[in-house]
């Protein structure tokens, strides 16, 4: 199948051959028998022995075959753009007027974290417009793997890994490869949100709406909020406090991956327990801990399995080294298209409404009690409702 000069190949995930080695390695790895800090079974020291042991034990009996089947029940493809193989899930609504939507994950995420939102978004759902009229909304959904992650190859140059380069790849994917030439919408979290931002900023004629949970601008703190004379909602306040705490204690991985990606990458590349500890800590630390969140340990294991079985952990951490300063001073985008923001309470970084409204035409901002850094898995219904309402009301194809 070809679209102009681009070839689109159907793709099936087939990593089963790698699994016996993973299981054997896991079974053979010895963890300490007890925590060296008595009474220290809390995340202040890193992933706890209880968390790690539980994840490891579950991984030993984890059925990759079933997960692979689930993953393959979606339509996957690959294409080549600028010498990079891009993998993506592509599901079409089949309904006229469906909004094309590309959703981008981050690190340590993957396309898999957004699979729970795909089928609901394909459905025709009814929303109420501001003037009271009803409207049916549905989406065509595209979920790519970031370059250098899982099934997407790493670009051959350092510059090719930059946020703007990936944004350009995504625009080519949507507008040229997949033929969404009348405009499309974007969504993203973590690195996916930063890339999506640049996509929004660089291609105003194509990107007609963006729903993001992160921005490439330096986050603010409570002191700044006070200076700006602003009042925050409870969840906005909660988010800033949590962020302050995390800033002091949660950025070690960031410093290491930004400066020595080869060191941590090679140390953990063929080290399943290593990746489980390193990545598991991030999932635990930035997800809904109340029991209400829908992210499960199985989701974590699928995420780590995808990195480990494709041998892409090493490549994934270069995302940091090749984008060492992703945050800039805030500015307003030239794209006047609507911006939406989902404020998931347990996320790691938060952006008060008044602050986000400086970046673009913010027309939608919703606080969520449930969910965290991986909203597609942690609160898929919240994500879906937000995207439907926001884009259903505000998205319009290019006239």
């Amino acid at each position, binding site marked *: 199948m070809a679209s102009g000069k681009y070839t689109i190949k159907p793709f099936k995930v087939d990593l089963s051959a790698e699994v016996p080695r993973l299981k054997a390695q896991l079974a053979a*790895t*010895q*963890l*300490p028998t007890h*925590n*060296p*800090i*008595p*009474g*220290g079974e809390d995340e202040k*020291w*890193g*992933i*706890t*022995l209880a968390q*790690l042991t539980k994840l490891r034990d579950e991984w030993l009996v984890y059925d990759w075959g079933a997960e692979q089947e689930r993953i393959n029940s979606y339509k996957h493809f690959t294409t080549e753009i600028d010498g990079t193989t891009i993998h993506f899930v592509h599901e079409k609504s089949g309904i006229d007027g469906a909004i094309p939507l590309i959703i981008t994950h981050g690190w340590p995420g993957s396309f898999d974290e957004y699979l729970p939102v795909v089928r609901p978004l394909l459905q025709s759902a009814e929303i109420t417009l501001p003037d009271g009229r009803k409207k049916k909304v549905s989406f065509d959904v595209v979920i790519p793997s970031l370059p*250098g992650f899982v099934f997407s190859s*790493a670009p*051959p140059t*350092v510059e090719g890994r930059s946020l703007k380069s990936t944004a350009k790849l995504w625009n080519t994917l949507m507008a040229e490869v997949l033929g969404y030439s009348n405009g499309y919408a974007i969504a993203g979290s973590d690195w996916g949100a930063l890339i999506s931002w640049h996509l929004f900023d660089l291609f105003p004629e194509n990107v007609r709406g963006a729903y993001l949970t992160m921005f490439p601008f330096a986050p603010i703190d409570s002191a700044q909020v006070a200076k700006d004379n602003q009042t925050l909602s409870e969840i906005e306040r909660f988010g800033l406090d949590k962020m302050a705490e995390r800033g*002091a*204690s*949660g*950025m*070690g*991985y960031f*410093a*290491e*991956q*930004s*400066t*020595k*990606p*080869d*060191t*941590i*990458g*090679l*140390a*953990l*590349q*063929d*080290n399943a*327990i*290593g*990746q489980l*500890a*390193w990545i598991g*800590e991030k999932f635990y630390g930035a997800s809904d801990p109340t029991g209400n969140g829908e992210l499960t340990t199985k989701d974590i294991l699928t995420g780590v399995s995808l990195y480990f079985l494709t*041998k892409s952990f*090493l*490549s994934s951490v*270069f995302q940091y*080294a090749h984008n060492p300063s992703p945050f800039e001073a805030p500015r307003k985008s030239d794209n006047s298209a609507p911006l939406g923001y989902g404020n998931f309470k347990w996320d790691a970084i938060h952006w008060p409404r008044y602050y986000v409204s400086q970046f673009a035409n913010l027309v939608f901002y919703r606080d969520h009690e449930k969910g965290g850094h991986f909203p597609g898995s942690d609160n898929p219904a919240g994500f879906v409702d937000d995207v439907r309402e926001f884009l259903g009301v505000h998205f319009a194809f290019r006239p």
Partner: protein
Amino acid sequence: MPPASPPRLLRISFAQADVERMMTLVENTMLPEEPPFPEASSTWTSGMNLPWLKTVREQWLREFSVDEFERKLNLWPHYMALFDDENVDLHFVHAKSSKPDAIPLLLLHGWPGSSHDFHKVVEPLTNPSNPTAPSFHVVVPSIPGYAFSTWPHRPSFTIVDISNLYHRLMAETLGYNNYAVQGGDWGSLIARIMVSSPKIAPHVRIAHLNIYSVVPTSAQVIQALQALVPSFLSCIPGYTTLVNLLSSTLNSLLFTPAEQRGIASAVAYGRTGNGYFHLQSTKPLTIGYALVDSPVGLLAYMGDKFYDWSDPAHLDTRDLIETVALYYLTRSFHTSVLAYQLSHEVAMSLVFQPGQWTAAAGTAIGYSSYPYEIGIAPRMLVRGMGRVVMYKEHSYGGHFAALDNPTAFVKDLRELAAGHWAQ
């Protein structure tokens, strides 16, 4: 204070099953065919270099012999001393000189080092070929949580506690009422604590450091001043060039070339070389559990520092392999990194508030700088510590000075002792 238990002799011997397990993992751990980016194969700018890692892994497989390693370790007697009230069973090497009036010398390692850091200097220190040179009774402890020293399983355990323990080892367990201390890395911080302790310092006649990690107040002032410069100024064409020119002119007026080089390497460390420090200071058990059972993982992670901080012309990768083997076989990696969290506050005080850690007695202090060390403290800075009687600049060697320039390491200690031990 309960009486110190007499030390128990320890013959180092690793279980064959453990060694086989280690070597199997070293062999079977897969490394990528190609580095992820072309430039990563010829540089170290992204951290551990893949071709180098493969070479050292091959060397490990080809050359490492546990019998040879044990023989090397057991050249000198090892002991365990139980400090029940501290919940620490402390390992140390105790190599006595044949000369009864030899100087008791405490050699202190850091991370990712070990007591094995000093294996090249024990012989010349205890048994100099020149009979008129000073000789030493050498004591080399392992920091609690490293190698054979047990981890105390306490939620609070800092380098202040460790310095007290080391003093008790020398004064009570071994009966050395007066002694010398030498330290690098964490060992240098422990040595500084001992020299600044009113209780311990009177016993420490000589102290030698091969690193003096202090950020001078002036640097903090400069940083604060720089933060005040309006951003529009820095956009003026030529501004950066002008600032750099002024800095380099000032630097060359104030500092020797070695000092300037050291300042530059300290700045580089702060910019790209201390990710591990942030990580281990905040989430030590994440990296701890991730690597404790991975010899190749440890080789990559620890090897990064051995390479980065050593003189490449003098780094012997056997020392790295043996150090990693020691960490792995004693399953101590995850406890070794805890110091960064537990002693973070004390360490920051030593670095940023050196005025609070000045010498409490008349200890004669010596400092030696090696070109591949993380930063070099200019003379004016070291003098703030106390009675600095020796300041040396060496032409080769690095952070693990006893490994990559043992000749200078020994010579400096002898000179310091000859000049300042007798009172």
